Structure formats: C-alpha cells, structure tokens
C-alpha cells in the first residue's frame, strides 16, 4: 500500500497515512466509526521533497497496515510550525472536505498578476499559522509578500490563506450592496474596509481576530494561497457553475 503525507490545516500538522486523499478526507471529517463530522482542509505533500526534513525511519515503522490488513489512517509526524518547515515546491493538490466527508480536489495553477483589479479591496481568511480575518487593499501576491518579507514588525515565515467574496463592497464599501454576504456584523466590515480607503498607507485591517474553524465554501472568491515573500502557490477555486460539473456531490453538499 502506498504512503501519503498531508499537511492539515486544523490543526496545523504533518500527517502520514496509507489512505489516498479522498479516503483521508473522509476519515478526517467523520472518523473511523463515521460518527464525527467536521470540515477539513489539507494539502498533499510530496514525500520525496521532504524526506530530509522528517524522520523517515519512524514513518516507515509506524505507518503500516493494521493487524486486520486495513490501511493505517493517520500517523502524526509533526504538529508545530509545520507550514514553515514544508517547502512550497513540495505542496501538491489541496483538498477540501464537507462535514460528512465529501472531498473536493483543487489543483495548483499559475497565478496571473495581470488579472488583479486595481483599487479593489479584498477579504482574506488566514488559515495558518495565524487565523485572523483580514480586510486589505492588497491583492493576494502583495498581501502575502507584505506579511512574510520582514518589512514590518508583524511578520510570518509563510502564510496559508483564502480569499473570500466581498461583492460590491470590494469597490464601494460604504454603499455597496451586502445583500448576499453572510458575514456577521456587516457594519463592522464596512467600517474596516472604509478605514482602508480613508487612511493613507493603511494596507490591512483585522476584521475578526478568531477563526470559527469553518469556511463557507460558497463564499470563496479566487481561491487558496500559500506563500512566502515572492513565492506563492495558488489553488484556484471554481465558480459554482464549474463546481457543479466538476464535483456534483460537493456542490450539493455546500
């Protein structure tokens, strides 16, 4: 049986498993007895590219089939500063699961800076290693660079985040329609966005300090990003019409 290594988002951990991504997603969400339910986000990691970073002997010894021949579901390899440790080029596809374990695969794609809309505001949910909800005037590439290049006192070695929909608020925070935005306290969000518009040199504003642990998959705008300084991996998120065709089960479940 093959062995896989995954970088899980909540909690941030490096986990080896004998389950392929769909099976691992189902296991993470619903548990062995299928009595659990939880949304999960994880990225498959290229084992070859992190061989030198982990204890391979321990992995090979522990990640073996169970006595009854069934595959080992999870062997935790590391649970602290994992994202920082894993090189960007070792990251393979990203997987999202619903509560009851339906898995959506997102492939890496080149990020096109030319598509960035000038002057538009953005909303980012940071996922690892810190988890605030942040409004920013910076597009994803500039956002990740600013938070990871050490140019400010608040800096991170690497950042995993997702861009969320702002709708009309992206261009008109004060008067734009927020009708279809499910966020709590829209007034506060408008205030945060307006501050970005008003204050000179203010690039980002924390909207919410704590992440609830659950993403509303229908509110994802462009997709997921993992980056450090000028390097960034982009996982584009399909439109709902595309998603309906790509993965009907997932589309129906969200």
């Amino acid at each position: 049986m093959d062995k896989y290594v995954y970088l899980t988002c909540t909690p941030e951990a490096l986990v080896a498993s004998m389950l392929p991504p769909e099976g691992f997603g189902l296991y993470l969400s619903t548990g062995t007895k299928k009595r659990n339910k939880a949304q999960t986000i994880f990225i498959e990691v290229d084992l070859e590219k992190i061989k030198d970073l982990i204890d391979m002997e321990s992995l090979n010894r522990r990640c073996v089939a169970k006595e009854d021949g069934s595959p080992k579901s999870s062997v935790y390899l590391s649970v602290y500063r994992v994202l920082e440790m894993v090189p960007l080029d070792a990251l393979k596809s990203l997987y999202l699961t619903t509560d009851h374990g339906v898995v959506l695969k997102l492939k890496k794609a080149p990020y096109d800076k030319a598509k960035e809309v000038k002057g538009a505001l953005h909303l980012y949910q940071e996922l690892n290693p810190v988890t605030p909800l942040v409004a920013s005037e910076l597009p994803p590439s500039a956002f990740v660079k600013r938070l990871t290049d050490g140019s400010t006192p608040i800096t991170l070695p690497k950042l995993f985040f997702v861009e969320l929909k702002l709708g009309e608020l992206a261009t008109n925070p004060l008067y734009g329609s927020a009708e279809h935005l499910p966020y709590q306290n829209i007034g506060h969000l408008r205030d945060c966005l307006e501050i970005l518009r008003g204050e000179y040199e203010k690039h980002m504003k924390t909207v919410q300090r704590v992440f609830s642990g659950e993403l509303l998959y229908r509110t994802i705008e462009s997709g997921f990003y993992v980056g450090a300084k000028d390097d960034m991996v982009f996982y584009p998120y399909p439109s709902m019409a595309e998603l309906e065709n790509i993965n009907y089960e997932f589309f129906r479940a969200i």
Partner: protein
Amino acid sequence: MISSIFWIVPVSALLALLFAWIFYRNMKAQEEGTDRMKEIAAYVREGAMAYLRRQYSVVIKVFLILVVLLTVLAYFGIQNPFVPVAFLTGGFFSGLCGYLGMKTATFASNRTAWAASKSLNKGLQVALRSGAVMGLVVVGFGLLDIALWFLILNGLVFTPDNMANGMSFLGLTFVHPGTTEHEKLIEITAVMLTFGMGASTQALFARVGGGIFTKAADVGADLVGKVEAGIPEDDPRNPATIADNVGDNVGDVAGMGADLYESYAGSILATAALGAALPAVTGDIQMKAVIAPMLVSAIGILLSIAGVYMVRTKESATPKALLRALLLGTGGSSALILVVLAVMAGLDWITWGVFGAAVAGLAAGVIIGQSTEYYTSDGNKPTQGIAKQAVQGPATVIIEGMAVGMSSTWVPVVTIVAGIIAAYGFAGGFSNFAMGVYGIGFAAVGMLSTLGITLATDAFGPIADNAGGNAEMSELPKEVRERTDALDGLGNTTAATGKGFAIGSAALTALALMAAYMEEVRLWLGRLIDKAPEGFKQIGDTLFYNSTVPAVQDGQTAVHITTASVRDFAAAYDLSLFNPILLGGVFIGGMMAFLFSSMSMKAVGRAAGKMVDEVRRQFREIPGIMEGTGKPEYAKCVEISTKGAQSEMLVPSMIAIVVPLAVGVIFGVPGVIGLLAGGMSTGFVLATMLNNSGGAWDNAKKYIERGNYGGKKSEPHKASVVGDTVGDPFKDTSGPALNILIKLMSMVSVVLAGLTVAWSILG
C-alpha cells in the same frame, strides 16, 4: 325519466378507471432499475401499505360507530335510512382511491428514477402518468359512486309505485307515500349528498393522519440524521429516511387525493341538490339542473384523459419546457371545458348565467393557484424577502414568514369573494337567490371539472420527490439526480397550484354545502310538519305548513314549506348577525379553525418526539450504522410514525364531527349557520396563511441553499432552517387539514340537519 345523455356520466367514470388501469399497467411495464433501487422502493412501498392498513383499521372502527349512530337516528325518523349505507360507500371509495394512488406512486418512484436516467422527458412521462392514475381513480370512483346511487335511487327505489304507496323496510321509511316527481329529485339528491360525509370523514383521517406521519418522519430524519449525525438528505444510513419517503406518499398522494375526492364529490352533489330544489322548476328542466353538474364533470374526465396525452416534450427538454408541457395539459383541458360548457348553454342544458358562473370558478382556481405560486416561489420577492431576513436571525425569519403568509391571503380572499359574487350574479342576476347559489355550486364544479389532470400534476410531485430520494440512496450518477431534481422542482410548482385549487374549491364547496344545508332544513321541516297533528310547524313567527293553511295571529306569517324561500327561513330562524346565537356560532366556527390547527400541530410535535428518540436509539445501539455496515431498522421508524399518527389523529378528527353535532343540538339552525360561516371564513384565511407561510419558509431555505447569503452552514441558513421547521406542520399538517375541516363541518351539519331541526334546544 333519465335523459339518455346521462349515460355519459357512468361511461366517463368507467373510462377514467379504464385509463387509470392502462396507465398503471404501462407504469408497471417500465424497467425497475438496479437491485438497490428495487430494494429501496420496496421498503417505501411496504411502509406506505403498512401505514394505510393501520389507518384503515382505525377508520373502520370510527365508521362503524358513526354508522350505528346514523342508523339509530334513522330509527327515530330524523335521518334518512339510506344515509348509513351512502356514508359507507363514500368512505369506501375515498379509501380505495387512497390505496390505489399510494400503490401506484410507490411502484412509480424507482421506475421514474430509472426512466430519468435515459431522459428528462421519459422521467416526466412515467411520473405524470403514474400521477394520472391517482387523478383518474379519484374522478372515476367519485363519479361512478354518484352515478350508481342516482341510477339505483331513481330507477329502483323511487319507482312510481313506491312514490304512490311508500316504501318501508324493517320499520324504516325509505320512500314516503305520495311523493311527487318534483319531491323525488329533491329526496334523491338530498340522500346522495350525505355520501359526501363518508368521503369527508375518510379525507379528514387521511389528511390529519398523513400530515402527522409525514412531519414526524421528516423532523426525525432531519433533526437527528442531518443535524446531529451530519449525514445528508436521503442517506440510507438514516433510519428515518424511508419513513420520510413514505410520508411524502401518505401526505401528498393519499391525503391530497382524499381531500380533492371529497371536494369533487361534494361540489357535484351539493350543486345537484341545489338544482333539484330550484323553485318553480319541474320535469325535464329540474332533471337537467340535477344532471348538468354530473355531465360537466363527466366531460371533464374525457378532457383530462386527453390532457394527459397532451403532455409531451422533446427528449432534450429543459425544465421550463417541461412546465410549459404540463401547463398545456392542464390549461388545454380547462380551455376545452369552457367550450363544452358553452355548447351546453347553447343547447339549453344550462343557462348562459351558469356558464358564466363556471367560468368564474375556473378563473378563481387559476388565480388562487398563481397567487400561491407567487407568494411561495423563491423566484419572487416575498420568499426572497424571508431569505434576506435570515441574515438578521431566526426571529426575523419567523416574523417575515408569518407576515408573508398573512399578506398572501388577500389575493385568494378577494378572488373567492369576486368568484362567489360573479357566480351568484351571473347565474341568479342578483335577484334569484336559488339560481344564484346554484351558480356558486357550478363555480366549484367548473373549477374541479378537470380534476383528473390537475390531480395528476399534483400527485406527480411526490412521485418525482421519491424518485429523487431513490436516485440519491441508490447513488445514481449526477445526471440522473439533476433530472430528478428538475422533476422535483416542477412538482413543487404544480403542488402550489394544486394547493390553490384545493383551498379554493373547498371554500366554494363549503358555501354550496351551506346553501344545500338550508334545503335539508326545508326537507326535515316538511317531514316534521307531516307528523305534526296540527299540520304546521312554528319557527319564530313563521308557521310552515304543507297542506292546510293554518290560522295566523298578529305578527305571524304562514308559509308553504315547498315554496318557502331562504328569506323565509332566515326570518323564521332569525338568521341575522344580531341574533346572539348565530353570532356565537360564528365565534365557535372561527375558534374551531384555530383549535384544530393547534391540536394537529401539537400532535406533530409529540409524534416527532417519539421518532427522534427512536432514531437516536438506532444510531446509538446499531453497530456500524454510520459506517454503512450495520443496517438501520427502517420498519421501526415507519411503525413509530404510523402509531403516532393513528393515536394523535383521533382527537382533532373527532372534534370536527362532534362540535357541529353539539352546536346543532344546542344552538339549532342559527348556531349551525354561524358555525359554518365562522369556520369557513376563518378556516379559509387561516389555511391559506398556513400553507403559504410554510411554503415560503421552505423555499427561502432552498434559496439560501442555492448559494445566496452564504449557502448551507451559514448563519442565514441556520435561521432559515428554523423557519422551515416551524413551517413544516403549517403547510403539511394543519393547513391542508383545514380544507377538510370546513367541508366536514358543513357535511356533518347537512347530514344531521334532521336532528338539528327536530331536537335543538335553543335555536
């Protein structure tokens, strides 16, 4: 002498049954799908049949008690001796329709799903023609029962010999000696009208029991399966999922079928009774007035059959094209019935005024259906407004949903008022009361004349819904589930229209029955006069007599019973709002609608509680249930829902029978008239509000689930789920059952008119 054209009535009824059988055979000949599909369909079928068996065993006991009661009343001479038998046949045929409709629907779900795997159109054809079985057995048996009773009473009982010398058996008088030709038809239609009580009683149990069953199963499946265990809709691991699918059939197929069977039969019978009692109408004209509603319904059956065949689309049809095809079937049949009515008016079978009344009825049905669709569809502002309020939380969802439901009542109320006034005015010219109310009856007949196809499109909904469930549980490919979803969506639209027809026809039928009630009062007063040694009966200041004019004192009036107008009865019984007894009846009628709704809602809560406990137990105790290796005990959940429905339906159902009886005995005719007026007006408005609030809450949730306001799991979604849960018993239990309550109260009053006239304490 029955006109030869009458034979269209039994022939059409038999044709309806023949085509129902053909559609049933064709449906059975379709491929059943995979083994898994067959297995799931079998679970649902067994559950549905087990439920029906239990329901019928309870209903039979109630029927036996009522038959004994009616027979005792007949021995006391205050009930027609045919009534116990007529009551039984009405109930029997209604129950038979429910059984056949459910049997067909539960055979059709997996076949529809499998047909949908080939094309959307094939799925539509199987679902619609299976729904047509229900539609056609309802109109077929309804009209056959009416035709058979008419033929038996007219040809075998009210023979010239029996009419001259009377006919008695076991001490019961079936035909009074000296019955005239004019009285014959009044007697026949009055007896036939009472068979509607059997249908009403059966319908009430089907609606209340079915409503409790379906919601108990639904809440159990959702609350424990979806919310607690986190498994999706229609997941086979959920023990209540089969009960939930059974519930769709029990509530929406058998319940709706029984409801409309009752309206269909009630409207024809009440109109026939009103036609027979038209003053100064005798001989052929009287016979035509009696037969005309039956004839229109018979031709409506033929057009309904044609309508089913009109529904065709291309293999690559879009959902919009499917809806157009369905509308062509229902709209085409309705348009053709207008042509038929015009021909009948041209041939002097009905007046042009009655034609206008029927047009008013049809138009009212369409407008109420469209208004229901407007207020409950998520493509329109009212429902989207509820979804928008979900952003604030569940409290505002409830407020907005209640407000939408309440405001949605204005269109149906204005429509029905306009329909009633138009029908009354067209037929009676605002001066001839008897002809006017005959027109109101005809408006109901016109509305329901193409019930065969209307009910087919209605029963199509739960069949498509079950097909979706079957496809989901059988894990059929995405394309199939998309198609069954499209059929289900189409079913929701037709169901909204069907509900509009159901409540609209209930209001018109109840009004016709109220008018027919006065004819029953006339009939029983006449009998009392015959028995009275003084030869008259004094009601208030009016002396009703039959043969000898009584001496009157100052302030008194003597009126011949056969020529007495409604105004005479109104004056005699003081049928005015200033009579506290009548006003008291109005209040009691209004209260009944609320009390009945409350009882049925509470019943859902209690039955659902038992279901929740059972589903939790199974999740806790059955090893491997969540892994899919342990098999849930589906039958246990069906049994719990069945038991819950049976035990909980009795009390609310019985008060619908007992209260009119008690009001009749205590408050007499004014009390009954008040009760019926209060019950009808409040019940109609409350039912519309409950149906539309519930429908709008349901679709507001679906609107959010389609991705608006964050989609599933968002806070607005959670708020909308609360609204949907509140709305479930509104739209599927209490609201639909109110249709029947208003008709059953009228029917009980009609049947017990003799008791009221003879024994009332105050009125």
